[in-house]
């Protein structure tokens, strides 16, 4: 078994209870941080750990924390971004469901380090059960004086509120989240000013992903250096990967960053290989918004090196032959999957979730959805493929928030790597009109290498 840092206690029965969590050494790092350490020391530890944002962008957390406007006299806020709604990603849900106190512990330490006295957990509205679990954990922490006024006699006070969203993917974008939290329509703000200067109610605000914040507790416990020794290069520590798709063992796995992708897919410990003895066709390595990679490129980079589960290795080759680690939603496709149908599905999601604020994303996602819908259902033309690539290229980089990029990347990468399938759809409408045509598509083309 691999090392477990975040999910170490996940298997203990009743770990959601405060007493059991405490009995197994929980809240030890919160005590250590609040009583023995200063906020500057915590920040130093986090910087030393090399922890990178687990929400998708992979920005170093210590650096992000250092940007917070500390001169401003307004109150500061810490926001835990639990609006996890990307197709293929379900790691935060697992953390909050099984280890709510680990998340709270991270929140307490981080709030103390940032000098925030109010903390919000912005939970995706669909996670109704999690709201109860988190609220129960918060109530227990209040009773045990880990929250509330004068925590553990240190004079530091912290309130944590759970705020359920109303079911919009866009509210996972940090500024849209802030708007939503303020009670407005969840439209992303125009940056600058960045939330670290003008965030919630115009006050300095830090927005971090659940997994990032949950990792703070273990980092304080084991020390930044020890955490940094795990992993490879600039990708330090462990990461939760939510694996799904045509694999034998879908689920949430904690891996050391630096694990070869091949091992992750085929080892018994993790995904356990492709289901029903089929062959691997493609992988979306980091949630629906990152580029899709065909089998030969996900296992080895274009340069012939082994592809590792790190931020750098997955991004190797740029978007021509690489992808991103993203939020860790690992979606695996077997040889029978139809890439056009899959791309259409993703685009349908982005079309539905675009906030409609800026024109390239609002109109472009809808347009791409219509064209892909046509292609998928055997009504497309050959010229539609170039049209799609052109639309995706124009959305990319012109929008306010990253949703436009996220909508464009799957389309442009699918066309880049699986153009034959798109062409097949345009050439053989009578075949693709059948609902399960993935296997039929496969038989027709030959250029894609399977493993």
């Amino acid at each position, binding site marked *: 078994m691999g090392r477990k840092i975040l999910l170490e206690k996940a298997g203990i029965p009743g770990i959601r209870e405060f007493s059991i969590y405490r009995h197994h050494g929980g809240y030890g790092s919160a005590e250590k941080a609040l009583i023995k350490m200063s906020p500057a020391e915590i920040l130093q530890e986090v910087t030393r750990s090399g922890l990178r944002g687990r929400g998708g962008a992979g920005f170093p957390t210590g650096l992000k924390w250092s940007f917070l406007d500390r001169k401003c006299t307004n109150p500061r806020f810490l926001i835990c971004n639990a609006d996890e709604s990307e197709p293929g990603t379900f790691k935060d849900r697992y953390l909050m469901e099984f280890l709510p106190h680990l998340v709270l512990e991270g929140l307490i330490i981080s709030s103390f380090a940032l000098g925030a006295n109010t903390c919000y957990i912005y939970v995706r509205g669909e996670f109704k059960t999690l709201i109860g679990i988190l609220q129960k954990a918060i109530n227990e922490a209040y009773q045990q004086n880990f929250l509330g006024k004068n925590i553990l006699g240190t004079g530091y006070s912290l309130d944590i509120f759970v705020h359920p969203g109303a079911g919009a993917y866009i509210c996972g974008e940090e500024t849209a989240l802030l708007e939503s939290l303020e009670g407005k329509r969840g439209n992303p703000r125009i940056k600058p000013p960045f939330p670290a200067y003008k965030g919630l109610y115009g006050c300095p605000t830090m927005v971090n992903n659940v997994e990032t914040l949950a990792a703070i507790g273990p980092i304080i416990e084991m020390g930044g250096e020890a955490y940094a020794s795990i992993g490879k290069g600039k990708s330090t520590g462990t990461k939760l990967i939510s694996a799904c798709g045509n694999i034998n063992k879908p689920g949430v796995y904690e891996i050391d960053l630096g694990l070869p992708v091949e091992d992750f897919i085929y080892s018994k410990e993790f995904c356990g290989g492709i289901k029903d003895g089929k062959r691997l066709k493609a992988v979306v390595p980091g949630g629906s918004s990152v580029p899709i990679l065909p089998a030969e490129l996900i296992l080895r980079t274009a340069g012939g090196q082994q592809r590792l589960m790190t931020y750098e290795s997955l991004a190797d080759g740029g978007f021509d032959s690489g992808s991103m680690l993203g939020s860790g939603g690992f979606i695996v496709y077997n040889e029978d999957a139809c890439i056009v149908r899959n791309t259409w599905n993703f685009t349908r999601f982005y079309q539905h979730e675009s*906030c409609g604020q800026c*024109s390239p994303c609002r*109109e472009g996602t*809808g347009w791409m959805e219509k*064209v892909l819908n046509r292609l998928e259902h055997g009504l497309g033309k050959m010229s539609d493929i170039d049209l799609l690539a052109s639309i995706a290229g*124009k959305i990319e980089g*012109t*929008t306010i928030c990253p949703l436009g990029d996220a909508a464009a990347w799957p389309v442009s990468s699918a066309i880049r790597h699986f153009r034959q399938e798109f062409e097949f759809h345009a050439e053989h409408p009578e075949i693709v009109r059948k609902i399960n045509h993935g296997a039929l598509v496969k038989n027709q083309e030959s250029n894609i290498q399977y493993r």
Partner: protein
Amino acid sequence: MVKVTIDNIPIEVEEGTTILNAARKIGGKIVPPAMCYYSKLAGSGGKCRTCLVKVAKSSAKDPRPMPKLVASCSTPVQDGMEVLNITSPEVIETRKAIVEFLLINHPLDCPVCDQAGECDLQDLSFSHGMANTRTIESRREFPPTDIGPFIKLHMNRCILCYRCIYVANQITDKRVHGILFRGDSSEISTYIENVIDNDFSGNMIDVCPVGALTDKTFRFKSRVWFLKPMDAHRQCTKCSGRVTAWMFGDEIYRITGRKDQFGEMEEFICNECRFGKKEFSDWIIDGPRKIKRQSVISASYYENMIKPSVINPIGEIMEETE
């Protein structure tokens, strides 16, 4: 004061000025088009993305270029910044794409649209758009909604610039309309069949860059280019009373605010002036209003016309034949 170079033209502007406003100070062709930004409305801008420019040099301290194109209406200038607008092929290409995006759901019913002739989107697609269309999809359609006695909402034409929402927020007492839904099905509407009834609600018509919000008292009366814009004023207790009266002979067809060369109103006017006073006797006419914008209306000015080189062509022809 900071120094910024836009398309190789240097200018000194105050700190905190946006790139767009700096470009407007220079004026001329290098001003990026803006469909959603309105200098009189706080918080507007950044949505339509037509004003995207390339920043080749971020500042004197940090000479790196910005990785993406930036919205010039919401990006403040920095000392030593170098901006490329019409000199960058990338910007021109992107702008072409943005115009295309704006037009794919726009009904292009210009022949029956009251805004035709003074429409920002018309001007934009003429100057920056493509000649052809690549969409064969059906456009989004909305049933017409009645939002009050004076204003007609044509949601099909809307490009969701949010300007009317900022007007309602900042000029009127209470905003009763907003954006419903999201993505490409989002629409401007009042909440549960509410009626927009406010003394300054008519300004929504003037800020609308397209024909989504039109004046019910003027609808289908005349094309704008047949009318003469005249500066007019009256004593008004609510607003400054300085307006543009659009006249045909002695008849006033409609009243709008005075628009500057960037299509923005100089002053917001009240509904009484706009909808209630359509008699010639209500107004004191100051004189003809010069429309500075590139528009079909300004084409009827003599100064813009090319003077015929021959004063009396018929006479000359006659001379020749003799």
